[in-house]
C-alpha cells in the first residue's frame, strides 16, 4: 500500500509518498497555487503517481496540511461576516484586552476586526455566570437582527452570547432565526466552536471560524472531490493545529483549527522521528528563508498552547506551541549609525534574495555569509541548477560591513553568523526557560533548508549536547502528516470550587464529552479498539487567574482525591511550588478523543560502504577566529554508511539541506536515517 502526505505551503507544495511494504519514500515539490489552493494538489498527485509508477487506487491514505486558512486571515480574504452578541457587548471584539501591540512603537497599531462595527448586532438576552437566565431571549430583537443580517447580505454569521459556554439555548434559538432568514449562510456558534469562558477569546475564535468558513468549505470540497477522483480508495484527512488528523466533515465545521496545520505536522514528524531514535526530549528547529519555527517536545509529546494569535487575533483552540522567530537564511546584515552590526529582522526573502543569487539582491544576507565562508557549496545549491556569484556576496560583505567596521571580510562574515545564532539562541532560551526546562536534557532537532547549517553553533550557544538531522530535512512537514493520529479536542468550562459535590458535575461533564468523542470517532470510521481517550482538568488555587492543566487517568466518582493530588504535582512542576490546604477551583474540562491511524515505517538500507566512498571533495571552510580556514571533507548524504563516526570539521550535503559538523563535534548516521551529532560540551 502507498500513503501520501501533502503540505500546501505559501510558496511550495510538498509531497511525500511512502511505500509501506518496501519502507521507501519519494519526495516531490511543486509551486503552490494561492489563487486556487487545491490546484497544486490536483496537478501534483498524477505527476507523483507517474514518478512512482503506480495507479491511484494503490493509495490507501492521503493526509494534507495547509496554511490556506492562515494566509486567508492575514490577507483578509475571508467572507462577509456578521456578528450577533449580547446587548452591551458588540465592541468586545474591538476592545479586546485593551492592550496596544508595542510598548514604545505607536506605528504598530491594533489590527481592525474582520467584522466591522456596522455588521455587529446586539440581541436582548442575558445569562448569568451560572448559566441561568437573567434576561430572557427577546424574540423580536432576535428577529430584527436576523432581518438586518439578511439585509446586509452577509455570507457567514458568528453568534457569541455571554456565558453561552454554560447554556447554549439562546445561541441555538438565534441560529434557527438566522437560518430562517438566510438559509445559505455559514453559521458558527461560540458554544460549539469553543465552549470556554472569557468572552473576548471565545468571540474572536468564533468570528474567525465564520470568517474562514465559506471559502474553506469550497476549498475542501474541491480538494476532496479531486483527491477522490484520483484515488478512489481514500478518505482524505487534514492535519489540524494540534498535530492530529481530522476528516473533511470536521474541517467544514471548524476551519479555524487548521491555522497552524503545516508547521504542526512538522513538529509531530520530528517528535515521532526523535522518539524512534531514542530521544524523547527535543527542541525542534526549523529554519526557512525568512523565519525560524521552534517548539519544545518533552517525553516525545509536543507542547500545546491555547494562547496563540492568528493574524493578530486570539484563537483559543488547542494548538502545538510553535514559536516563530523573524530570522532565516534571507535575514539581512546591516550597520546602524552608532557602529552596531545587526542581522534581521528585515529579510531579502526569495526576491530579491541573497546577493550571491544574482536576482537583484544588494544587501548581504546570512546565506551570503555561509557561501563566502565555504559552509554552503557554491556549485551544489539546488543540485547546481542555480548559478551562484560568490564574488558578489564577498564584495557586498566587504563593502557594507567589513570595511566600515574595520574588520577582515572573513571575520565580518563569521560575525553575521554569530549574531544570527545569538538572536535565535536567545529566542530558544526564552521558550525553554519560560517552562523551567534545562536545555542540557534536550537534543536539537534541526530541519528546514537552513536548520542543519546553524545547528552546531546554536547547540554550543544554548548548551544543548546533541543534534539530530533527519533524513530529507526539507520535507519534514509532509512526512509528519504520515505519522499523525486522528484527534478531537473537546472542552467545557466548569468554573466552580473543587469539592466532592461539584466533582459530581465534573464527572457528568466528562461522561457527556466522552460520548461526544465516541460519536465523532464513529463518524470518522475509527474502530472501537483503535480509540483512546485522554482527560485533563484545568484548575487553579482560589484567587489565582491562571490555570494548570492536570492530566487524569480516569474521571469517576472516586477520583476526586487523585485529582487534588495531581493538581499539587502539576502546580509544583509548572510553577515550582504548591500550597497545601489552599482551596482549589476547577475551570475547564478537556477530553482528547484519539483514533489511532497505523504508523508506517520508513526503512533505510544498511550497506557497508566506507566514509571515503561517500566523500565528494575537500574544501576550505572558515570556522571562526579560533580555527581559521580548515580543509574540510564534504560527504554526500545518500552515500553515508550507517554507524561510522565522522569527526568534525565535516560537511554533509543533500538536495534539500547542508549539515555543518563543527571541529570537535562528532557525528554518525543512525539506523533510522538521522545524522546524530555529539556536541561534546
Amino acid at each position, binding site marked *: 500500500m502507498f500513503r501520501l502526505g501533502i503540505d500546501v505551503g505559501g510558496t511550495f507544495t510538498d509531497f511525500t509518498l511512502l511505500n509501506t511494504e518496501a519502507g521507501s519514500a519519494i519526495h516531490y515539490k511543486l509551486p503552490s497555487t494561492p489563487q486556487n489552493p487545491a490546484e497544486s494538489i490536483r496537478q501534483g498527485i498524477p505527476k507523483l503517481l507517474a514518478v512512482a509508477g503506480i495507479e491511484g487506487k494503490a493509495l490507501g491514505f492521503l493526509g494534507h496540511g495547509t496554511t490556506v486558512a492562515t494566509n486567508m486571515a492575514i490577507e483578509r480574504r475571508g467572507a462577509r461576516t456578521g456578528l450577533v452578541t449580547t446587548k*452591551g*457587548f*458588540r*465592541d*468586545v471584539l*474591538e*476592545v*479586546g*484586552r*485593551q*492592550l*496596544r501591540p*508595542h*510598548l*514604545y*512603537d*505607536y*506605528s504598530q*497599531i*491594533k489590527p481592525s476586526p474582520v467584522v*466591522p*462595527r*456596522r455588521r455587529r448586532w446586539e440581541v436582548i438576552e442575558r445569562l*448569568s*455566570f451560572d448559566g441561568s437566565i*437573567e434576561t430572557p431571549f427577546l424574540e423580536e430583537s432576535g428577529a430584527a437582527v436576523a432581518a438586518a443580517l439578511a439585509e446586509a447580505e452577509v455570507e457567514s454569521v458568528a453568534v457569541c452570547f*455571554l*456565558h453561552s459556554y454554560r447554556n447554549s439555548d439562546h445561541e441555538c434559538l438565534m441560529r434557527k432565526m438566522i437560518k430562517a432568514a438566510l438559509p445559505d449562510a455559514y453559521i458558527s456558534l461560540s458554544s460549539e466552536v469553543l465552549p470556554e*469562558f*472569557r*468572552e*473576548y477569546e471565545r468571540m474572536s475564535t468564533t468570528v474567525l471560524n465564520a470568517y474562514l468558513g465559506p471559502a474553506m468549505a469550497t476549498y475542501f470540497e474541491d480538494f476532496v472531490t479531486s483527491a477522490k477522483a484520483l484515488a478512489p480508495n481514500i478518505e482524505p484527512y487534514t492535519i489540524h493545529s494540534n498535530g492530529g488528523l481530522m476528516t473533511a466533515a470536521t474541517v467544514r465545521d471548524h476551519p479555524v483549527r487548521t491555522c497552524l496545520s503545516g508547521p504542526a505536522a512538522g513538529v509531530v514528524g520530528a517528535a515521532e522521528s526523535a522518539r524512534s531514535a531514542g530521544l524523547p526530549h527535543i527542541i525542534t528547529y526549523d529554519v526557512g528563508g525568512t523565519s525560524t519555527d521552534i517548539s519544545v517536545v518533552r517525553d516525545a509529546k509536543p507542547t500545546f498552547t491555547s494562547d496563540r494569535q492568528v493574524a493578530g487575533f486570539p484563537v483559543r483552540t488547542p494548538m502545538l506551541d510553535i514559536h516563530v522567530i523573524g530570522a532565516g537564511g534571507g535575514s539581512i546584515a546591516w550597520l546602524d*549609525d*552608532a*557602529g*552596531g*552590526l545587526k542581522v534581521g529582522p528585515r529579510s531579502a526573502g526569495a526576491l530579491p534574495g541573497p546577493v550571491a543569487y544574482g536576482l537583484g539582491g544588494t544587501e548581504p544576507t546570512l546565506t551570503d555569509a555561509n557561501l563566502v565562508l565555504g559552509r554552503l557549496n557554491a556549485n551544489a545549491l539546488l543540485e547546481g541548477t542555480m548559478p551562484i556569484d560568490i564574488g558578489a556576496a564577498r564584495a557586498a560583505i566587504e563593502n557594507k560591513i567589513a570595511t566600515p*567596521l574595520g*574588520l577582515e571580510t572573513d*571575520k565580518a562574515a*563569521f*560575525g553575521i553568523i*554569530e*549574531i544570527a545564532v*545569538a*538572536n535565535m*539562541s*536567545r529566542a530558544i*532560551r*526564552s521558550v525553554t*526557560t*519560560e517552562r523551567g526546562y534545562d536545555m542540557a536534557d534536550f537534543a536539537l532537532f534541526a530541519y528546514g533548508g537552513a536548520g542543519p547549517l546553524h545547528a552546531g553553533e546554536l547547540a554550543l550557544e544554548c548548551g544543548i549536547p546533541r543534534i539530530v538531522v533527519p533524513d530529507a530535512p526539507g520535507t519534514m512537514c509532509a512526512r509528519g502528516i504520515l505519522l499523525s493520529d486522528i484527534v478531537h479536542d473537546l472542552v467545557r468550562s466548569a468554573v466552580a470550587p473543587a469539592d466532592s459535590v461539584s466533582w459530581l458535575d465534573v464527572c457528568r461533564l466528562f461522561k457527556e464529552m466522552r460520548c461526544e468523542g465516541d460519536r465523532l470517532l464513529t463518524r470518522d470510521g475509527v474502530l472501537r479498539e483503535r480509540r483512546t481517550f485522554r482527560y485533563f482538568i484545568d484548575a487553579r488555587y482560589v*484567587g*489565582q*487567574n*491562571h490555570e494548570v492543566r492536570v492530566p487524569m487517568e480516569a474521571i469517576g466518582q472516586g477520583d476526586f482525591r487523585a485529582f487534588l493530588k495531581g493538581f499539587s504535582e502539576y502546580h509544583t512542576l509548572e*510553577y*515550582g*511550588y504548591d*500550597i497545601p490546604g489552599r482551596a482549589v477551583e476547577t475551570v475547564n474540562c478537556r477530553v482528547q478523543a484519539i483514533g489511532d491511524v497505523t504508523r508506517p515505517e520508513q526503512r533505510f538500507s544498511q550497506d557497508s560502504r566506507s566514509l571515503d566512498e561517500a566523500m565528494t571533495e575537500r574544501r576550505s571552510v572558515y570556522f571562526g577566529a579560533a580555527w581559521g580556514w580548515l580543509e574540510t571533507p564534504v560527504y554526500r548524504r545518500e552515500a553515508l554508511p550507517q554507524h561510522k563516526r565522522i569527526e568534525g570539521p565535516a560537511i554533509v550535503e543533500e538536495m534539500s539541506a547542508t549539515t555543518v559538523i563543527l571541529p570537535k563535534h562528532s557525528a554518525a548516521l543512525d539506523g533510522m536515517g538521522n545524522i546524530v551529532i555529539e556536541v561534546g560540551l
Partner: protein
Amino acid sequence: MSREFDPVAMEVFSNRLLSITEDMGNTLIRSSFSTNIKERRDCSVGLFDARGRLIAQASHVPLHLGSLMGGVQAVLKTYATGDMEAGDAFICNDPYLAGGTHMPDISIVSPVVIDGAVQFFTANIAHHSDVGGSVPGSISGAARTVFEEGIRIPVIRVASRGVVSDDIMRLVCSNTREPEERALDLNVQIATNARGTALLESLSDRTGLGKVLGAVDDLLAYTNRRLRNRIALLADGSYSCTSYLDDDGQGGDPVAIAATVHIAGDALTLDFTGTSGQARGAMNVPESALRATVYYSIKTLLDPNLPPNGGMFEAIAIDAPDGCLVNPRHPAAVGARSITCNKVARAIFGAFAPLLSDDSVMAAGHDSIPAIVFSGERRGGGPFVYLETVGGGSGARADSDGMDAVHVHLTNTSNLPAEALEHEYPLMVDEYGLVEDSGGAGQHRGGVGIARQIRAMQDDIVFSIRSDSHVIGAPGVFGGAEGATASLIKNADGPDREELSSKVSHIEMKAGDSMRLETAGGGGYGAPETRAPSALAADIRDGLVSRENAEQDYGGPFVEQAVLTAEGEMG
C-alpha cells in the same frame, strides 16, 4: 586602556545578557503567586554592573523603566560592596529612603560575587497587591503622607549568604493584608536573583569575566552614542509644553505640569520648572517614577528599539524644582503617581512636537490610567476587592487614526473579562464597549474611549475611583480637534442618574445600582476637512461618529458629500 570596540562580541553578549534577564523574568512570572505579577506582569528584572549602571532589563511596564536603578543606588549608598557576600539580598520599597517608585513596588537587589569581588547586581521589582496602609491595595488618592501608604522599607539585608531572614520576612509580611501571598512572592523574588546570579557566574566561567565586562562597556557606550546621534539631529534650543491634571486629588483647580526640553548639540535636558507645587493627595511623582516617565518618552519619541540601559540614561539630564508635583518633599504621598506620570508624558510629547518632523508627531491620547475599585462581600462570604485600570483612545498620527480602547504611555495592562468578573464577584457588566463621538476629529481621528458599566448584584458594595481627564480633554495637533473628556455616572439608565467627579471614594452601592465610566478619547491629527471622505463615511456607518457631530466638526456639505460618495461606491 584603549580596548577596541568589538561590534560582534557586543551584539552576541547583548543577547546573552538579555537572555539572562528574560530567564529571570520568566522565573519571576512563572513562580509568583499573585495575579498582579503573574498575569498583569507588573514586574521587571535587571542586571547592573558594580557601579550601579543598568546593563540589561526585561520590563513589562514602561513605568518600571530605570526604576530598579533607584533601589540599586540606594543599596550602594547604604552598604560598601566590600561588606557584601555571595548569597546576600537586599530589600527596599520606600520612595524617599530607597529610590522606590511607590510602596507596593518592592525591590530585591543581590550582589554577584565573582573572583572575590562584587562584579554585578541582579535586581527585580514587583507590584505587590497589598503592603498595608489605610486602604486595601495600599493606594488611596486621599492619602496625605507615605505613612498612610503601607510599610516603609529602607534598604535592609533580607538574606545573608543564602539564608533568608525569617525575622525580616515576618515583620514585612505581617504589615500587609495577605501575609501568606507576600511571603510566597518575596521568596520568589529572592530566588529570581539567585537564578540570575548563577547564570552570570556560568557566563563569566565560560567566556572569562574580562570579556563580559568589556562587552558591557561596549554596549553602554554604543547605546549612549546611538541616542546622542538621535539627539544631535534635533535643532538646538528650548521647547516647552504644559499639560494639566483636572485637580490634585483633593478637589480644586487644574494642576500644571510644565516640561521644557533643552537641546544643545548631543545633550538633552528635561526641565520641569513651572510645574505646580506638590499635591495634597497621592498624585505626586517621586524621582524614580519621573525618571521612568522621561526615559519612556524619549525612547518612544526618538528610538523605540533603543536598548534600555545605563548608556541611554547617561545621555539624559533631568531637572525638577524641589517640592513640586514631580519632585515632592518627604513625606508627601505618592501612591497614585501613575496618572500624573501619563500627564507628564503628555507634556514631554508636546514639548518635543516642534522638534520632530510632522509625520512623527502624535496627538495626545487619553493619557490617564483610570482605576476603578469595587469591594464588598463575596457571594459565599469573605471580602473581595476588584481593581481594574481602564484604557481609552490614543492620539492620532500622521499615518493612522488613533487606536481605540488601549492603555497608553506608562502602562499596558489587560482587562478582566466580564465572564471572569461575574464568576468571581457579585457584580454584573451591563456594557463594555466604545464611546461614540469621543475621538477628536481630524484628517486622522483620535482613538475612542471605553464605556464600562458595572452593576451591583447585592447591597453594601463600596466603590472608589482614581481617574482624570474628566475636565481637560486630549489636545489635537495641526488643526485636529480635542478628544472628548471622561465621565463617571451613577445609575446612568435610571431616574436617579448622577454624574460624579473623577476621584471619589467610598461610594455606597445598593443592589441594582450601577457605575458607568466613559474614558476619554484621543486628539485628532490635521484639519478635519482634509479627512478622506471614505474614512468619515465609514465612521458614520459604524456609529463611531454621529451624523450630528460629524456635521459640527467637518461641516454639513463635507459630510453630505462623503456619505453620498460612499453610498455610490457601495452600489
